[in-house]
């Protein structure tokens, strides 16, 4: 892409941006959802499924009753945490892709409560603390690399995800493994589990922790001086530094707090999701919760309250998607369900993507600069 093309592309996006941001955010999201549903319907129609029946199944399966609503919320709970991880860092001007890996580490730490006995309640709290601390510690790697060596956080968090993934694979297979059930770790004992909130569903008390954490983040970012500093650093680091804000501090804080969130997502899954209450080999119950959280963060406009709503919506899509698979005489197979969900989620994320696009572009340009510089030094060296 030439510089001119990039500029005109930027102008086009800015134009679209101006048109769209003129709308009320709620109206914007509704429009995006309608667009996504239409694309999904078109795809289903092309492949010979009945979009009406499928969407009816989706809706019924997501919000058709108390069982369905509880299932949808339960599916959304871990995503609230991982979405907040991403959003806190976006507000601080960074793209933290590391929720996935921090969550694995948090889950592994939470499972460690199986090795000692404590009274119920306290046992649960200790597990939550373990997970939060483990997630925060894991997030410090990329944060310190950024502070001391200027390593771009997009790259370092992605790499830390892989390290975490294989580290937890190892822990699950060799260290935390249940000797009688080699396919999973030891189980979190009953005294350290989140009690089930709605009988016969997956919804546990972990939902309260998620909402509390979201409110805490909201309060911190919008109603404290520290939060103001974090947001100021995100909006314009140069101006913030000139104003006497320590950028190092805001980076460290937002990464650590994000790590706490991701760690809690691991705790909510291993300590709050029936029936296994353990990490299964290959992490099939954790996989992608961190990345899905990024989609939820985009849908929720990187705002804690928006994220709560978006998680309910995303959880509903997943819970309803399960029902689409067997509803009616020509049910939609899982592969198609996921294509439709993808279309809806992308459409819902567009307004926020447009808004943060300049920041993403800046980050990518910086990255490009790094590579160009490397190549230049190579050439000089040769």
């Amino acid at each position, binding site marked *: 892409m030439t510089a001119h093309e990039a500029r005109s592309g930027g102008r086009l996006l800015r134009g679209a941006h101006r048109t769209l941001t003129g709308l009320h955010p709620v109206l914007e999201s509704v429009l995006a959802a309608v667009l996504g549903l239409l694309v999904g319907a078109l795809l289903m129609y092309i492949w010979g499924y009945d979009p009406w029946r499928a969407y009816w199944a989706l809706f019924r399966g997501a919000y058709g009753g108390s069982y369905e609503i509880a299932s949808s919320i339960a599916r959304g709970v871990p995503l609230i945490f991982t979405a907040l991880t991403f959003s806190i860092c976006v507000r601080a001007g960074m793209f933290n892709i590391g929720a996935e890996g921090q969550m694995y580490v948090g889950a592994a730490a939470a499972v460690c409560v199986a090795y000692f006995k404590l009274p119920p309640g306290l046992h649960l709290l200790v597990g939550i603390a373990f997970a939060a601390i483990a997630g925060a510690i894991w997030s410090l790697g990329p944060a310190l690399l950024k502070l001391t060596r200027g390593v771009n956080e997009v790259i370092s968090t992605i790499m830390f995800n892989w390290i975490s993934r294989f580290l937890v694979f190892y822990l699950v297979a060799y260290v935390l493994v249940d000797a009688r059930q080699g396919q999973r770790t030891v189980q979190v004992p009953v005294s350290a589990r989140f009690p089930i909130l709605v009988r016969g*569903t997956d919804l546990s008390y972990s939902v309260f922790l998620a909402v509390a954490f979201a409110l805490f983040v909201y309060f911190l970012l919008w109603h404290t001086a520290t939060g103001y500093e974090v947001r100021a650093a995100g909006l314009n680091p140069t101006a913030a530094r000139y104003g006497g804000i320590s950028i190092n501090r805001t980076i460290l804080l937002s990464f650590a707090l994000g790590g706490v969130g991701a760690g809690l997502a691991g705790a909510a899954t291993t300590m709050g999701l029936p029936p296994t209450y353990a990490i299964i080999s290959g992490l099939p119950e954790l996989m992608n919760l961190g990345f899905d959280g990024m989609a939820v963060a985009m849908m929720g406009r990187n705002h804690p309250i928006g994220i709560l709503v978006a998680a309910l919506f995303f959880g509903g899509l*997943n*819970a309803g998607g*399960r029902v689409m698979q067997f509803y009616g005489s020509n049910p939609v197979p899982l592969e198609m369900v*996921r294509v439709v969900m993808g279309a809806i989620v992308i459409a819902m994320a567009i307004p926020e993507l447009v808004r943060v696009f300049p920041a993403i572009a800046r980050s990518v340009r910086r990255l490009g600069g790094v590579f160009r510089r490397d190549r230049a030094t190579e050439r000089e060296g040769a």
Partner: protein
Amino acid sequence: MRKWLGLALVVALVAAPAMGQALKGKVAVVLDVGGRGDLSFNDMGFKGTDEAARDFGLQMVEVQSATAADYLPNLRNLARTGQYDLIICVGFLLGDALAQAAQEFPQQKFAIIDSVVDAPNVMSIVFRENEMSALVGALGALAAAHYGYPNVGVVLGIEIPVLYHFEAGYRFGIDWGNKRAAEVLGTNPVGLLYTYTGSFSDIALGKAATEAMLAQGAVAVYNVAGPLGIGDLEAITEYHRNKGTEFGPPYYFGVDANQDWMGLGKHGLASGMKRVDVGCYSAVEAVVNGTFTGGIISLGLAEGGVGISKYQDLLDFIEFAVGAGAMKAEDRDQTIANWLANRATIPGWIWEAVDELEAGILAGTIVVPTADTVEEMRAVRAQYTLGAP
């Protein structure tokens, strides 16, 4: 009047269970995160249920799981509707979720493949994998003796009880083959190379483990890790390519499905087949015939639940692969020709020996050991050390 009422009550009581037996006309099959498209375990579960549904005029639905968090909700969602005569869980990993769902929905009939769930409404279908693995092991040991290779290999997945059945049977079969080879050829016993990779999905692990075994002179590698076997076959194919050989040792032993056709049938000598489709079919059949009961159904050689692959199996699974788009229809004849050429590299007396072992197991004169726990597995390993110190 009261007498008539009493009679009516008796009739109602007698009729009620009979009416309860009336079919609702739907069966469901629930898969784990492995999902469809493996041309093996999961696809066979689908195939068996689908065939049964067609034969008995039922509607079948298939529910896949995007993550492990979907297992229990999927079972609950289906059971809640009360519309399903039977819900089949394909795979060991669904066991925990089923244990919970079966308790919550005592009226719902369930079946599970490869796991034992102790509930009156669950039919637990398990296979005697030790029996067909013994046949594969005997074939491997005799082939090694014939070609002068020091070892046979097996690449296993995660160390779970199901896989102990394979390992125990394989060990017994190799030992049996060693004894026969000593009688016929006077050769020394061959050893066993085995690795638990800790994964069913990481193909690179399977390839690396197989390469290590080939380097130590394994005449064949038995895949007991599902999709990982693709890596095993890749390593064997590369080995042949580097040596410039077309057929003959080292061989690939497939698992679960008939995998002999893979790679155009060049190196797949035999498969230890575990007919998940037969298990699913018989579960549906039991519901239709009203003979469904909770408890363990064990399928072995005698029931046609397991076996070593034969010519007809190759033809069946070639059709299966072509139907799934995994094999081109025009490659059919070439694959069959390759397979026959590869099988011809094993002399007839070895095939006869394997048939003899099969007949012995069927007749009950030969009992193949198995293992369900770490301790039992250790005991079998101690009895059949196969070259290990």
